[in-house]
């Protein structure tokens, strides 16, 4: 019998974006929903759910930690954005980028977060210049490994090389399981068909993707199809931004993995994620000794909100059940 996994379960409140947006759930209610799933970790996009960002009152900070105690959860990851296109006529300077990182590191520290997510587009020099502040505020900077970027791409290698050579413990990586999309998510497929995509062409693109056919080639083929319409082309284009990486690669990077985004597009009635091989991924992480968090990151609402009532709460519960089943036996 395998010992019980040390991997901890959490939820990114990003998963409840639909209900927060429409006013069905407020911030506290989102946290309450997480607690109901038994997950302990809270991940937050302050720019999504903290009104008045970047200003946060002392009263809110007290309220925030009050919720943490009340619902028996803990702050885990703060998802930051580096808006270096803040002005239309120029990019921010290095110093302005670092100031923005420091603003987020400070706020992450103030709200008890351990890890700050930085995006693919964050220049490495900005991260390097921010490390003293990461240390000062005790918040680790984690580079999200997010499709279409993945392990092995030049973008990744350059950053990974720095992490290893510098030996810093304030900069690491956080894979988003969206880099392990084996099959184009059915919810995306169906949305494109509802939007007028030609079923045969949509299926053609899906099968090509699943069989590892070069995505640019598929796009070229679709472009030449006389009956391919705008939606078919958009779908072939969309496929180019999805990616499948062999999850085994995770083994080689465990010491540098600070957090994991449990991205998923839909958990079916029989508790399956049709496009991402969760079972393999969990086993690999577990056997390799990963003991950090995996946070549910539901990103399915935008593909189904056109024709059905989105139920992110149910989707998160199902995803947590899936994680529990894979982690606990």
């Amino acid at each position: 019998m395998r010992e019980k996994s040390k991997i901890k379960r959490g939820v990114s409140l990003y998963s409840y974006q639909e209900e927060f947006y429409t006013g069905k759930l407020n911030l506290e209610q989102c946290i309450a929903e997480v607690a109901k799933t038994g997950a302990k970790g809270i991940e937050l996009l302050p720019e999504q759910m903290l009104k008045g960002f970047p200003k946060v009152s002392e009263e809110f900070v007290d309220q925030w930690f009050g919720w943490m105690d009340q619902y028996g959860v803990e702050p885990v990851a703060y998802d930051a954005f580096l808006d270096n296109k803040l002005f239309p006529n120029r990019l921010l300077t290095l110093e302005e980028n670092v100031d923005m990182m420091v603003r987020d590191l400070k706020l992450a520290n103030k709200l008890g977060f351990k890890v700050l997510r930085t995006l693919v587009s964050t220049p490495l020099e900005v991260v390097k210049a921010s490390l003293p502040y990461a240390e000062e505020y005790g918040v680790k900077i984690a580079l999200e490994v997010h499709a279409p970027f993945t392990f092995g791409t030049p973008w990744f290698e350059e950053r990974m090389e720095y992490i290893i050579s510098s030996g810093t413990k304030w900069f690491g990586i956080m894979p988003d399981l969206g880099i392990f999309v084996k099959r184009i998510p059915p919810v995306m497929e169906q949305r494109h068909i509802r939007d007028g995509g030609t079923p045969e062409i949509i299926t053609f693109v899906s099968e090509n993707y699943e069989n590892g056919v070069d995505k640019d080639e598929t796009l070229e083929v679709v472009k030449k199809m006389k009956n391919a319409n705008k939606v078919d082309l958009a779908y072939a284009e969309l496929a180019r931004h999805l990616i499948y990486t062999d999850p085994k690669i995770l083994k080689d990077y465990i010491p540098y993995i600070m957090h994991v985004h449990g991205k998923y597009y839909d958990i079916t009635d029989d508790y399956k994620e049709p496009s991402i091989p969760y079972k393999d991924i969990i086993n690999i992480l577990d056997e390799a000794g990963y003991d950090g968090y995996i946070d549910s990151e539901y990103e399915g609402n935008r593909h189904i909100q056109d024709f059905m009532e989105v139920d992110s709460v149910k989707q998160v519960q199902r995803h947590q059940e899936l994680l529990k089943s894979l982690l606990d036996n």
Partner: protein
Amino acid sequence: MFEQYMVCEDGFKNVEENGELIGFEVKLRIPYYRGVSLSLINSIDLEVDGISFPQDDMLFKVETGSFPYNELSTVINNRWEFGEKATLFVKKKGGLDSGSHKVHAVVNLRISYLPWPNIGDDTKTITLVEN
């Protein structure tokens, strides 16, 4: 994403000042998954019943402030919050006729990690609220 929620059915009304109709308002929600500084708004285009309105005649109002369209490019400390119903006021002597109108809005946001802008495009037939 969220385009379908962009043009709001409520709050669509004429605006009166000193007994005169000076324009109309429509509420818009952000076609994106987080709030942004108003300076990230590349452009807002509005058509009502096929007629488009000049941006110079627009005011964009969020809870923390109201700005003429040509000021938006430097408004970095006021945000269009996630899910917030912002108000787009458009100057139009005499306002709009009562009843329903086909409102088409296109919102273009400058998202730093994307090589292309995030464009929300939504058209709804909505009814002018009587004052």
